[in-house]
């Protein structure tokens, strides 16, 4: 009467689970066989994101990800040639508009209006050829779930989970848009992206965090957010998008991952068939500007209609540096209910309601982020909070960590690794992103590296990196908006 859902034990290292294959054009394929249900998580990752942008086109990686849903020669259009003819006209009109509007001192706004109207009427005409959200609909019609895409600073991913008998659909649609993306509806989608940016701006505190990040990075492309600056979104052209696509959306810059109820040999044969004919592209340009030494402390003060907060950021080395695992251990020491920051700032000193500290290891330039929300009932000042945070940071430098505390962090890391193997979706994401940079095998080595970290390593690393000239402090205070809100009872309303 009882059934065991699963048989064979899963290996605890990835080496024994992952099957890899590389096509002649450089596309890497990673596969993990699992058969709980007849479904397959299908992801494809590109080694591109906001750090590959430059001033003038910030936000293009994310905007481009939106445009990848707008069709190809095959998808999203009923008559490609007719649609293309209209697009050529629309683009040349909009180039005139942008040039006049954004790049001339005293542009002719009457002309702008006329060109814009002409372009808009062509866009209306184009609608007869457009098959709305064709790719998305096709996936859904075939039981696609987890359907999405995301853009980060270092990678961009396209996701769908399909019934096990329909993986070929993903191969067809993804190979098609890798090779033949066609950016119709560019101008209306740009407005969608700008609305997305507004959503962030309307989250109180967002604009301060955006400025803090820009302050922290003086030179490296980590200094702007994935969404980009609004002015760049406005002035970006169709041609910028096409150039960007040609540079980064090539098979030798991508990893395809399949986790689920698969036959790896079949997957390889299908991948050869669909992706194999796409020519290898030139290797994309490497990132050149790394973050230079900071030399002096930076401080940023701001106000927003939300909870006050304190942030302290330190530059740390990029992934692959021998100290990487030490930062992972420090992160473990600081966080959670038994972490040092919660114990000290929240429980013992009663200064904060939340406190955390975590290392953000990045491919080219990392950051260690300490943060706390002050308790606003009572007399706590930002100076008190900063002092308490710095005391904890100094403790890392001066006091060797006890054996049991270190062991706790190692146990937690091991358990977290095992936990991370539970979800097919999560595993696909970890494999794909790791493969773009340090290689997926690095995931297996991470716990080994972490186990080697000693109390001396922690003191040495904290003393090296957590120093005044290497930090940026952000202090955000609540802005009183005038309208009546909680905590301002009785102060009256502006209306």
């Amino acid at each position, binding site marked *: 009467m*009882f059934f065991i859902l699963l048989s064979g034990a899963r290996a605890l290292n990835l080496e024994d689970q992952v099957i890899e294959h590389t096509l002649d054009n450089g596309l890497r394929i990673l596969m993990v066989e699992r058969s709980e249900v007849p*479904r397959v998580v299908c992801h494809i990752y590109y080694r591109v994101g906001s750090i590959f942008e430059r001033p003038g086109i910030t936000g293009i990686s994310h905007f481009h990800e939106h445009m990848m849903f707008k069709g190809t020669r095959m998808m999203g259009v009923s008559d490609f040639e007719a649609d293309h003819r209209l697009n050529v006209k629309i683009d040349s009109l909009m180039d005139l508009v942008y040039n006049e509007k954004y790049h001339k001192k005293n542009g002719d706004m009457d002309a702008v209006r006329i060109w814009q109207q002409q372009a808009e009427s062509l866009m209306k005409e184009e609608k007869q050829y457009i098959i709305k*959200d064709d790719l998305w609909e096709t996936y*859904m019609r075939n039981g696609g779930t987890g359907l999405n895409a995301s853009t980060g600073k270092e990678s961009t991913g396209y996701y769908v989970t399909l019934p096990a008998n329909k993986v*070929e659909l993903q191969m067809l649609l993804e190979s098609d848009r890798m090779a033949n993306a066609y950016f119709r*509806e560019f101008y209306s989608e740009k407005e969608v992206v700008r*609305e*997305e940016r*507004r959503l962030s701006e309307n989250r109180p505190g967002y604009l301060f965090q955006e400025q803090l990040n820009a302050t922290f990075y003086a030179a490296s492309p980590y200094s702007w957010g994935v969404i980009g600056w609004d002015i760049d979104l406005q002035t970006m052209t169709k041609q910028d998008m096409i150039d960007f696509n040609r540079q980064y959306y090539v098979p030798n810059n991508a990893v395809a991952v399949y986790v689920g109820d698969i036959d790896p040999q079949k997957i390889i044969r299908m991948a050869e068939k669909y992706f194999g*004919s796409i020519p290898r592209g030139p290797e994309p340009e490497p990132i050149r500007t790394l973050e230079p030494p900071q030399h002096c402390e930076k401080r940023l003060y701001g106000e927003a209609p939300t909870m006050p907060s304190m942030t302290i950021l330190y530059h740390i080395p990029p992934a692959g540096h021998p100290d990487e695992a030490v930062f992972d251990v420090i992160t473990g020491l600081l966080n959670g209910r038994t972490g040092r920051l919660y114990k000290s700032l929240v429980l013992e000193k009663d200064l904060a309601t939340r406190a955390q500290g975590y290392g953000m290891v990045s491919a080219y330039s990392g950051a260690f982020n300490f943060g706390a929300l002050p308790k606003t009932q009572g007399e706590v000042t930002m100076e008190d909070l900063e002092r308490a945070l710095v005391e904890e940071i100094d403790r890392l430098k001066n006091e060797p960590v006890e054996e049991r505390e270190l062991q706790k962090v190692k146990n937690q890391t091991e358990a977290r690794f095992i936990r991370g193997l539970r979800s097919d979706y999560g595993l696909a994401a970890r494999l794909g992103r790791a493969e773009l940079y340090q290689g997926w095998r690095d995931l297996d080595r991470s716990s080994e590296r972490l186990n080697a970290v000693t109390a001396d390593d922690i003191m040495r690393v904290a003393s090296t990196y957590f120093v005044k000239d290497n930090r940026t402090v952000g202090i955000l205070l609540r802005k009183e908006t005038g309208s009546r809100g909680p905590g301002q009872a009785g102060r009256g309303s502006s209306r």
Partner: protein
Amino acid sequence: MNRRLIILTGAALALTGICVLTAQVPKHPSELKFESLTYNPPRAEEYRITLSNGMIVYMVEDHSLPAVDLQAFIRTGSIYDPVNKKGLAQMTGSVMRTGGTASLSGDELDEKVDFLGASLSSTIGTRRGSASLFVLSKDLEEGLELFADMLMNPVFEESKITLYKDQTMENLKARNDQPRRLLGLEFDRLLYGDHPFVWETDRAALETITRDDLIDFHNRYFRPNNVILAAAGDFDRDEMVRKLEFVFRSWTPEEIDFPSLPEVKVKNRPGVFMVQKEISQGYVNVGHFGVKDTNPDLYALDIMNFILGGGSFTSRITTKVRSDEGLAYNTGSRFVNQHDFPGTFYGYVQTKSSTVQYAVSLILDEFRRIRSERVSESEMETAKNYFLDSFPNRFSSSLNTMAAFAELEYDRFPLDYYDHYRANIEKVSRDEVLRVAKKYIKPDQMSIFIVGDIEACKAGSPDHPGSLEKWGKMTVIEPLDPMAASGGR
């Protein structure tokens, strides 16, 4: 050249050769032919047992990883908060975990859990309590002891109650900061009025609630016969049953006296309602009361709403408002179904202030359209295929499967619900979709609720003239201030 390399290259060429012969890449997805696939969902009763103390357990062995997951559902919720102690249930759920047990202080419990790399949690929501444990199987016994101790013997240390109150006080101050959250809270408050279902805690209640209240609340609902447990992982079933019997051996069943709940007065509130906020967009819900999750029309409603605004880019509202017009990043429609009360139905959009009026008019147009004509064959096919083909997803992990069964039982659905799910979806016709659209969407009953800059939203844009007032009387809503001395309504 070494021999091995040559052989490999040969094999690769051979493989490519085969592909060239057979590689007729389809010109369109419609040309793809898929092998058939049959899937039989697991059946709830095969995993269900009852412990001697009355606790119902859904359990399955899963040896793929050396770990065990438990998730308990406890029949309780903030709907049972006393009127002068709003927030009691939530506080009980939280301090149960942090405030120690008869044998361990809160800090000691934290240390033990963290040292094992385990995870232990407890929360009480609107109409359900839940507790969970993740632990490596080598530590199963210790983990189970901690899990059972937390559920049975919490002592609610005063210091952790104070901490909870301090933290909650900070959250209350931030209640109206995030426009999205503010909209959700105020929209529900408009419809449900003063009902336990939408009560929020406030300063006055926080100051009133005592440790004894938490102890009483826990005593009343945390009984083994009021718990449904889902368990999956690296254990032997028989041994696990023995272990559960052992750790919960001192827990005695008791009849639970659930307070009776006031009826929800289902009265829609047509009109335009606004909360002032100095932001660049209007956050909008357009809707009214919806249905209970026991409604027999639910399958037809799911399909109807998928086509209307629930199926993301496949849906009419997203296509129109986002893709076609570029007005918003987020837009669509949803039914939020409730179990003991009617839920809500609403369309939603966040768009720059000047296009709020236009975006709302497009959503209302779609409401009217789906009520006036049958959906197309193709829309119907997409929607049905989606529900049918994605069905196995809910059984994608052994824990998810056990939790899905536990939830069926919690909500008193028949245990063979999933056996008939696909047939029920298949049965829905286009006429049915039209019928439920007419029955459950009432364009003249809509509350148009906007959080945004009132003047800018009213001004609209020259491209799309029109006014908000055409949809009814405009009321400016003062959001709840949970820090006010009087506390709420």
